[in-house]
């Protein structure tokens, strides 16, 4: 598991909620809000991603996340993924 894979899992869950979004154009630095996800969509995307990764965490831990990368980092830290992408 590395950050790229986590990013892809988030994108897979984004498709379900933001189906008309061109996923190829989504960058890790984009914010879910700017991509059209409202507050409910955002927590749902994060929750579905934690389930896919089999991580247990509180949604409050994501409250300061500014973009997708911040979410990826929080999920990565839960999985013990280091900056270099190694576990």
């Amino acid at each position: 598991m590395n950050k790229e894979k986590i990013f892809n899992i988030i994108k897979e869950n984004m498709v379900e909620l933001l189906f008309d979004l061109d996923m190829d154009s989504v960058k890790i630095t984009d914010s879910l809000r700017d991509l059209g996800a409202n507050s409910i969509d955002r927590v749902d995307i994060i929750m579905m991603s934690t389930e896919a990764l089999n991580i247990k965490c509180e949604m409050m831990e994501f409250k300061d996340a500014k973009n997708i990368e911040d979410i990826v980092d929080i999920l990565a830290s839960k999985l013990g993924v280091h900056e270099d992408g190694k576990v």
Partner: protein
Amino acid sequence: MEKYEPVVITGIGIVSSIGHNISSFINSLKNGYVNVTQLPNINENFTYPRIGAYVKDFNYKEVLQRYKEEETLIVQQALRTTLRSTPAIGMTTTACIEAWNMAGCTSKPVQANRKGIIVAGNNLMDEMQYSTYEQFKDKPNYISPSYCLQFMDTQYLGILSELFNIKGVGFTTGGASASGNVAIIQALWLLRTKQVDCCMVVGPAAGFSPMTLQSLHNIGAIGGKTLRNEAQKACRPFDKAHEGFIYGQAGACMILENIECAKERKVPILGRIIGSGQMLHASRASEPSEEAEITVMKKAIEEAQINVNDIDYINTHGTSTPLGDITEIKAIKNIMGDHCKNVWINSTKGLVGHCMYSAGIVEAISTILQIKYAFLHPNLNLENPIDEEMRWVGSTARAEEIKVGLSNSFGFNGINTSIILERA
């Protein structure tokens, strides 16, 4: 008694087992088409008959394309916000878009804070709550955060008011099987008292959980007991072989507005609603009350300021339940007296099943279509009527000019409603 300005109907929409839009619904009404089927039981321990008038082959994404050109933004947003929702929400949203489009609300808009919305029904998310609990038992921590919004009936208000930019008065009305009429009646009051100029009345498709269905079966309310293997014959209001209601799936919507608003917008008027009544009979049980049904029909006639003899047609509550059917006939006979021989009677539930929360709206739509297009729909399963004196439409459609129709809806816990519709 005060005379109220008539409220007019300018848009109607439906997704039902016998038509996914108004034009196919009209054809099915004329042909007396019934689409009741039996599905295999989900679980061998569930003993209720899984029989119903289900909406089949409904592709939400595809159906919405029909409105893409005239309602571009609404369709785009509907796909984005409701594609992941329950099928019931998709069906109901489609019916709303059809009614909205027919009423010309996009091309000739009403100010956002002068538009209202009333959603008929209570416990609309029963089936979804049940299935979420199944997931919750396995993985409680992964429950969707949005479940806390989705389980509330007001979710419909949120989705639809956002979609149609409705910023006036909005609420849900619980009235059990009479919910649809209760919602229409509340819309009449909002319009008569000028709280809003235009009101969307929504009848969501009911999704029952196995728990609810089993309970309805155990209380003896569901039909298809002996006719389990002849599903098409199971829904037979007022026939001697009736044995309970048959679940019907339908999302329906009506756009109601003040006559001045419709005139100002220069939109065609489909019909009027001129009277209504809503009375309880103070009961915690499921039994109907002849006395209350008489009172509520009289109240509607009085409010419309017409005579009993002016009524040409009754769209009955007629659920196919033995006690309910006979009670309604007794109440109608009591009020109509000799005029009974002139009043045409049928039951739209005989074709679409009992659509629960949307039933009142489905039946108001059916009534106004029969008035507008001068026909009466048949009830093919009415072979041996429980009463020989009524003027049943019978087994074939009739071409009849009708001017005034009364539509009844009654519900558990002593809820009685009646509305009167008139040709535009």
